[in-house]
């Protein structure tokens, strides 16, 4: 544990916890480059995959090649004798029966055994071994002899509850009781409608495809386990590892130095991490286990596929009267979430709503949280549905949305601390040249048709405790920021260093941000749910303010002035009345004697009776070649209300990154399972699973922001931005495709092939 002198004077710290958002910040809000940019770009940053420990072994996992099978017999004898092999774990060992806990957001599910003889998905772990080199480990895996009894498999949610289908768990294929929500009177709402639309939408299973695959390095020192993992959630992993291994929590240390992309798939304990720990314990040597790209496609999470049936009604004036949204989602082989419908109930002011989410198991890798989980799928259906209604009553889609912007949260009636959805739609439409673009159409003879589309979005975020942050100031004017937030690539470290710089008036270069490490950083919420800034910025600010208070008290004693007459500027003490006579911190004898000042900060509780949500609208322009079905996104414009923009560069990275993901979701990304024969994934590689390349992303991308000057959400005035950027992109593209062609594509992704088939079907119908 890092030894930190923590001031016992806590009496005035409450003030530090209840700060008003900055009015004229000098550092926060500036487009400053990443504090760890050089390390990340130059390769000097040490990711877990780069870690080499003395005597370290390399592990590899034997995985079931079938989507559904029973391991009848496993013979590891030849592998055990293979050169370099030091240890093997399998279902034959007592450890094989260890049960991996579900993360906190999945309340229950069938037990996940480390090595289950009943393999429920392609890639399920069967055994693992550690060897001197990775190649010896891979070679030895091939010597393991497994006799599988192949079972018939279930690949589609639509089949899961039909009789005669294979059952994945003895509780059946239903994950949990369907979640239903209702308000108003649906029949009455449909009766009041002037127009009704009904449509079924489908989204495909999308893979996180992080640049860095999952990795774990484990080392034991006595009964003390240290694990290096790229994770969003050091404390979640620590708790799960300790529970699984029946160790005191304090005996497990989880370190997340750098994360090479996560998007939600690195927030829970994975089997490979536990396997690395077990093999390290068996061999008493450090063990590294890095998943291959193929493994990460099969077993490291995904955005689950959804089938969504919608019926909606509206009046001629554009007001929504009723919405029915029924979703069926496939979580994969073990419990997780595949919801979508419930999200729609909170999107627009609609008095009569019924939503139902049903989730089922299928023989495929388990879903994990994926950037805007549920919301992205929900928006694909709902935002196209809104477009259909607008089209049917002949109203502009922007106007239609404006008509239905809710004043309060439609589900609970609670007010938002701020909501600028209206402004996002208006400012975005104007900057996009929406009205003009909506009218302009390509000549009928040109095979390339142009169109524009819009979609809006909302994402609820929660900040607040528990989280503890420590800021330490040294007499030379440098500071250390100690927090449990791992920077998953979003810029958290940069933004938090900016908060310290803002509060203490010291340059960014003199602030060191510690890596997330349960051994040295205090408990903090994980980086997920778009809440890192909302949780940590107020906490860091409070800690820095605590430092400042203590520092000014020291200075007041030495300068014989009341602390209130002193300020901290450019790392110096400045008497308010004599600004020309600043005093260096090193001149403060009491500070030098104390060696450092440590300030502690916590995020203040969430505002009572208020909800915090981010909002946005995105606009897309596409070209559709009606001869080949090719679709090109020509232009994207986002206008978002995420509260205060802490750093325009990192904010823009989030929105642009989200939109690029949205392009993939809309046009190319799809897990393809072999329906006809093997049931295996046929594109578990970057060759055939296509994420957008630089050439697929429009040069013309713009990100506008609206700052609601939200003084209620937290002391930073900032709301979440990590996930929302990807939510409306795909439906905006689909709506643009409709505008270009008159064809409503309900199934994501819109491949050229699907597009062409729909165009051909329309020709035949005419």
């Amino acid at each position, binding site marked *: 544990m890092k030894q930190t002198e923590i001031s016992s004077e806590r009496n005035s710290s409450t003030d530090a916890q209840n700060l008003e958002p900055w009015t004229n910040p000098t550092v926060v809000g500036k487009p400053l480059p990443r504090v760890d940019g050089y390390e990340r770009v130059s390769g000097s940053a040490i990711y877990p995959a780069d870690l080499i420990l003395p005597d370290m072994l390399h592990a590899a996992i034997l995985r079931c090649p079938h989507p559904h099978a029973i391991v009848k017999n496993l013979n590891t004898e030849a592998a055990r004798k293979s050169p370099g092999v030091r240890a093997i774990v399998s279902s034959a060992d007592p450890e094989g029966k260890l049960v991996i806990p579900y993360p906190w957001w999945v309340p229950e599910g069938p037990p996940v055994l480390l090595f289950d003889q009943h393999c429920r998905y392609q890639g399920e772990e069967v055994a693992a071994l550690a060897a001197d080199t990775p*190649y010896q480990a*891979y070679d030895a895996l091939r010597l393991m002899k497994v006799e599988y009894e192949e079972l018939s498999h279930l690949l589609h949610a639509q089949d899961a509850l039909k009789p005669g289908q294979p059952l994945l768990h003895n509780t059946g294929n239903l994950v949990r009781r369907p979640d239903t929500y209702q308000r108003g009177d649906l029949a009455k709402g449909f009766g009041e409608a002037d127009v009704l639309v009904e449509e079924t939408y489908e989204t495909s299973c999308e893979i996180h495809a992080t640049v860095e695959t999952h990795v774990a390095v484990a080392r034991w020192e006595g009964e003390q386990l240290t694990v290096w993992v790229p994770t969003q959630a050091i404390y979640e992993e620590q708790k799960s590892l300790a529970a699984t291994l029946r160790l005191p929590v304090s005996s497990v240390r989880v370190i997340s130095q750098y994360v090479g992309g996560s998007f939600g798939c690195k927030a829970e304990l994975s089997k490979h991490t536990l396997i690395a720990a077990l093999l390290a314990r068996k061999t008493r040597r450090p063990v590294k286990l890095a998943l*291959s790209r193929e493994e990460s496609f099969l077993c490291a999470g995904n955005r689950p596929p959804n089938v969504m049936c919608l019926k909606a009604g509206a009046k001629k004036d554009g007001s929504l009267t009723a919405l029915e949204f029924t979703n069926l989602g496939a979580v994969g082989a073990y419990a997780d979430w595949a919801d979508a419908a419930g999200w729609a109930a909170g999107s627009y002011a609609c008095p009569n709503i019924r939503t139902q989410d049903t989730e089922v198991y299928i023989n495929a890798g388990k879903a994990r949280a994926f950037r805007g989980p549920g919301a992205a799928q929900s928006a694909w259906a709902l935002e196209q549905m809104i477009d259909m209604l607008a089209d049917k009553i002949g109203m502009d889609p922007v106007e239609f949305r404006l008509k239905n912007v809710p004043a309060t949260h439609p589900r609970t009636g609670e007010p938002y601390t701020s909501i600028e959805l209206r402004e996002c739609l208006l400012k975005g439409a104007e900057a996009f040249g929406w009205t003009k673009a909506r009218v302009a159409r390509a000549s009928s003879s040109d095979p390339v048709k142009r169109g524009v589309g819009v979609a809006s979005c909302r994402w609820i975020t929660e900040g607040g405790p528990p989280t503890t942050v420590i800021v330490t100031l040294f007499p030379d004017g440098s500071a250390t920021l100690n927090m449990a937030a791992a920077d998953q690539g979003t810029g958290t470290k940069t933004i938090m260093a900016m908060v310290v710089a803002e509060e203490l008036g010291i340059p960014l270069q003199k602030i060191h941000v510690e890596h997330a490490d349960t051994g040295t950083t205090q408990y903090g919420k994980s980086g997920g749910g778009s809440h890192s800034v909302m949780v940590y910025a107020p906490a860091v600010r409070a800690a820095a303010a605590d430092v400042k208070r203590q520092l000014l008290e020291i200075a007041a004693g030495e300068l014989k002035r009341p602390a209130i007459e002193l300020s901290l500027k450019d790392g110096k003490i400045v008497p308010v009345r004599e600004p020309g006579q600043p005093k260096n911190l090193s001149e403060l004898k009491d500070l030098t004697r104390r060696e450092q000042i440590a300030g502690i900060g916590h995020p203040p509780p969430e505002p009572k009776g208020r909800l915090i949500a981010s909002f946005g609208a995105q606009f897309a322009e596409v070209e559709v070649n009606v*001869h*080949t*079905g*090719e679709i*090109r996104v020509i232009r994207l414009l986002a206008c978002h209300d995420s509260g205060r923009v802490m750093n325009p560069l990192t904010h823009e990275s989030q929105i642009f990154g989200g939109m690029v993901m949205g392009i993939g979701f809309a*046009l*190319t990304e799809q897990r*393809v399972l072999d329906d006809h024969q093997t049931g295996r994934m*046929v*594109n578990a590689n970057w*060759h*055939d699973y*296509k994420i*957008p*390349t*630089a*050439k*697929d992303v429009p040069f013309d991308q713009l990100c506008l922001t609206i700052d609601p000057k939200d003084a209620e959400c937290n002391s930073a005035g900032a709301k979440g931005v990590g996930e929302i950027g990807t939510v409306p992109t795909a439906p905006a593209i689909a709506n643009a495709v409709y505008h270009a062609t008159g064809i409503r594509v309900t199934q994501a992704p819109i*491949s*050229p*092939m699907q597009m*062409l*088939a729909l165009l*051909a079907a329309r020709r035949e119908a005419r």
Partner: protein
Amino acid sequence: MYLRPTTLDQAVDALEHHRAQVLAGGTDFYPALGERLPSTPVVDITAVAELKGISVHETFFRIGGLTTWSELLAAQLPPCFDALKSAAREIGGVQIQNRGTVAGNLCNASPAADSVPPLLALDAEVELVSIGGRRGVLLADFIVGSRKTLRRADELLTAVIVPRVVENARSVFLKLGARRYLVISIAMVAIVLAVDEQRRIRDIRIAVGSCSARAQRLRELEQFLTGRPAQARLDALVMPEHVKSLSPIDDVRATAAYRSDAALILVRRALQMCAS
């Protein structure tokens, strides 16, 4: 066993005496291996200087087998090579283009090999050398099926020979994939079109890839178009029956039906680009 000969004689000698795999740019070789080690001896030909470079002769161009796509792109070549250069730009990313070789692409004989349609349209011939001597085989005959060629295990593909017949003809290469870049094609078309003084089609070669086990020329369509004026709306003459000799398959990238449709559209589009 890993051999790295520095002369062509040593290379073919090595192939004669070992049942070896040939390693050139490695851009297909290593991905095909995956995590496995090579099961046969490997003859790495990258140090054989005789296999490098492009030269112009009285009646033909000679493209050394080890010529990389980046080198081809940098070479000064007449317009009939534009299609091949377009294809070179589509082969993977820049790193792949720096490593991947002409000989490798042809010997790997993927149905989706980007260089094959443009070279077919140039009536290219491959030069094969073994300890027993040298022979030339038309590219159209050399690739016999998906990943199957006439190259014997003791032979090395040393060069591609392109006759100087249609040097100033226009040429176009079009490729359709699921995204814009770094993509295996769903369908691709290369056309080389030469006109006479009256702008009538004197010589036309149309090759389609990814739509059959091996890329192929559309000979009937070529004959049908020869002698016609190279003018606007040439594309309107192309009918679905002109591409019926193709035999595309369903796979992870596209269905057969979509491939047939796409091939027809690409042929029309490429023709229009050549004629206008």
